[in-house]
């Protein structure tokens, strides 16, 4: 009996020992070196301060009036329509392009991939100039579009969609290509052995499997298109109701009506936060 008690006590000490030690370790202040902590905090403040300022200086009382003005609604509506259309164009052209890059092997594939991602790093204004040279009234392709079909893209709403798609599509392509590479290609092989052509396999097997990646890519492209400024103003101009999207309206309002600019900015901020919230599981969760 006494022996048993003694061994029980010994077992307690054994199991209790490490636990107590662990508590002590956890209680110590986190050992973050100051040369890392300080810049990190400054960086955080730098990122958050402008957004905070936007909220602080917002004309909250006047906001309902600002937001219900026709000019704002026109710009917002145009922005939403154009960004959505640009996302649609990106989906129709970008998903097949991503498939081509991920699933086929052709000479110069790496080079093509680099070209596709170029608009990601290209200054948008340069993109706008390039679009003008290609699709403008006297552009390489634009002159034929004009003389054969009577289609003019620059300085039209369609031009806004073209400019936004040019800038936003690479985001979708890269996102979808990554998802495709992560997806098991053997499902497509399984589909082939069941008699599915390569296109049927893509439509009925691959597409549903990579749907989450496509959705994420589409939201990313949409958000990018919504905020597009440089390529849009260069290629499509700044005509209220026709090509003046929210970012353009914000910039213009800042010259003569700062309160309106802040109100418009708040709307775009709200949309951005909504997008981030929609993607939180995918993008903001820290990899662990």
């Amino acid at each position, binding site marked *: 009996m006494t022996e048993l008690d003694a061994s029980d006590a010994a077992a307690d000490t054994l199991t209790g020992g490490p636990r107590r030690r662990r508590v002590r370790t956890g209680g110590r202040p986190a050992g973050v070196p100051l040369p890392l902590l300080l810049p990190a905090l400054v960086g955080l403040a730098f990122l958050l301060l402008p957004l905070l300022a936007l909220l602080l200086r917002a004309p909250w009382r006047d906001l309902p009036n600002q937001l219900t003005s026709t000019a704002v609604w026109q710009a917002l509506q145009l922005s939403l329509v154009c960004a959505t259309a640009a996302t649609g164009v990106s989906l129709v052209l970008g998903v097949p392009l991503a498939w081509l890059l991920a699933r086929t092997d052709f000479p110069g594939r790496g080079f093509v991939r680099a070209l596709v991602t170029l608009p990601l790093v290209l200054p948008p204004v340069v993109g706008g100039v390039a679009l003008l040279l290609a699709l403008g009234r006297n552009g390489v392709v634009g002159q034929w579009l004009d003389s054969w079909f009577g289609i003019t893209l620059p300085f039209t709403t369609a031009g806004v969609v073209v400019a936004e798609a040019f800038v936003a599509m690479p985001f979708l392509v890269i996102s979808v290509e990554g998802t495709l590479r992560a997806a*098991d290609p*053997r*499902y497509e*092989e*399984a*589909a*082939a*052995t*069941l*008699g*599915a*052509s*390569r296109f*049927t396999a893509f439509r*009925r*097997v691959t597409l*549903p*499997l990579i749907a989450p990646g496509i959705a994420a890519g589409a939201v990313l492209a949409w958000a990018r298109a919504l905020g597009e400024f440089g390529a849009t103003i260069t290629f499509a101009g700044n005509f209220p109701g026709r090509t003046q999207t929210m970012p353009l309206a914000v910039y213009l309002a800042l010259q003569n009506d700062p309160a309106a600019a802040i109100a418009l900015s708040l709307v775009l901020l709200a949309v951005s936060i909504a997008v981030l919230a929609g993607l939180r599981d995918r993008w903001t969760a820290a990899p662990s």
Partner: protein
Amino acid sequence: MTDPTLPPSKPSDKGLDAHLVVHRDTFRLDIALAAAPGDVVALLGPNGAGKSTALRALAGLTPLSDGGLIRLDGTDLGRTPPEARPVGVVFQDYLLFPHLSALDNVAFGPRCQGVPKAAARELAAQWLERMGLAEHAAAKPRRLSGGQAQRVALARALATHPRLLLLDEPLAALDARTRLDVRSQLRRHLSDFEAVAVLVTHDPLDAMVLADRLVVVEHGRVVQEGTPSDIARHPRTDYIAQLVGLNLYRGAAEGHTVRLDTGPAITTTEDLSGPVFVAFPPSAVTLYRDRPTGSSARNLWRCEVAGLETHGDQIRADLTGELALAADLTTVAAAELDLHTGAPVWATVKAAQTHAYPA
């Protein structure tokens, strides 16, 4: 194009007649495979032997190299894309489409063959019924157990009415208990199947239970072919001998004595001449600490223990020395002999327990 080299089997207009040639970097697969409708053939071999490549070549997922040939029911399929081959595949991890229900997975094949949606689903329901999975028709693959997923995969492959059914390690993904059930069910379904079935496995038990004929593949070549019992009795390579648990040696026979390529001789009951194999089970080996004096065994070798491991309720001793061999003995015997790695022992085998056959 020159005439392709035909496999050594007789060409037939029914069943499978294939010469699978695939070159890849330093690996070369070159095996002939022939089977009649109703046959179940197992490709048995160690990992990396080329079994899976052979299966992929049959399915059309890996292209044949020059000299390759696949003829099924008299039709040349060598250049036919996978979707146009009357071939069904059960993949090792099944590859059930995760976004489709069990029913829609099975209906996928018929749909691709142009069967209208309702009819394809009806057909799929019948297949699931036959597999005893009617109540799981609406379940997504992740809700199925390993055994159920295996049957759905089999139903999916069979629903296209293939003339050649391929199974890649059909039981490898299952745990030991499920394996037993699924193996006997699979055997039943395979014996009902009227066309050619080829399965790939590295498990000799699966191969012997499921197949009528084994084709043993090593290093991309066929090293032995025959019925399961024939191969179990007369292994021709170390790999098969180990699989079926035999000590195997190659040598030249002269009457009842076989002079092994490695030096020592083994006395056998068979009277043979020329190159032969000699095989005996590890349980036929008797070990002594000291040289036995009164023993009638003429096969006596001085050995050394290289390793010991438990093997069921027995101890398997790995011996090196005059003759490398495996010996089984009871735990008590092992203790009495004071066996440990490096211990010297004498090993004997009675001639009556050896088996010699022409190489």
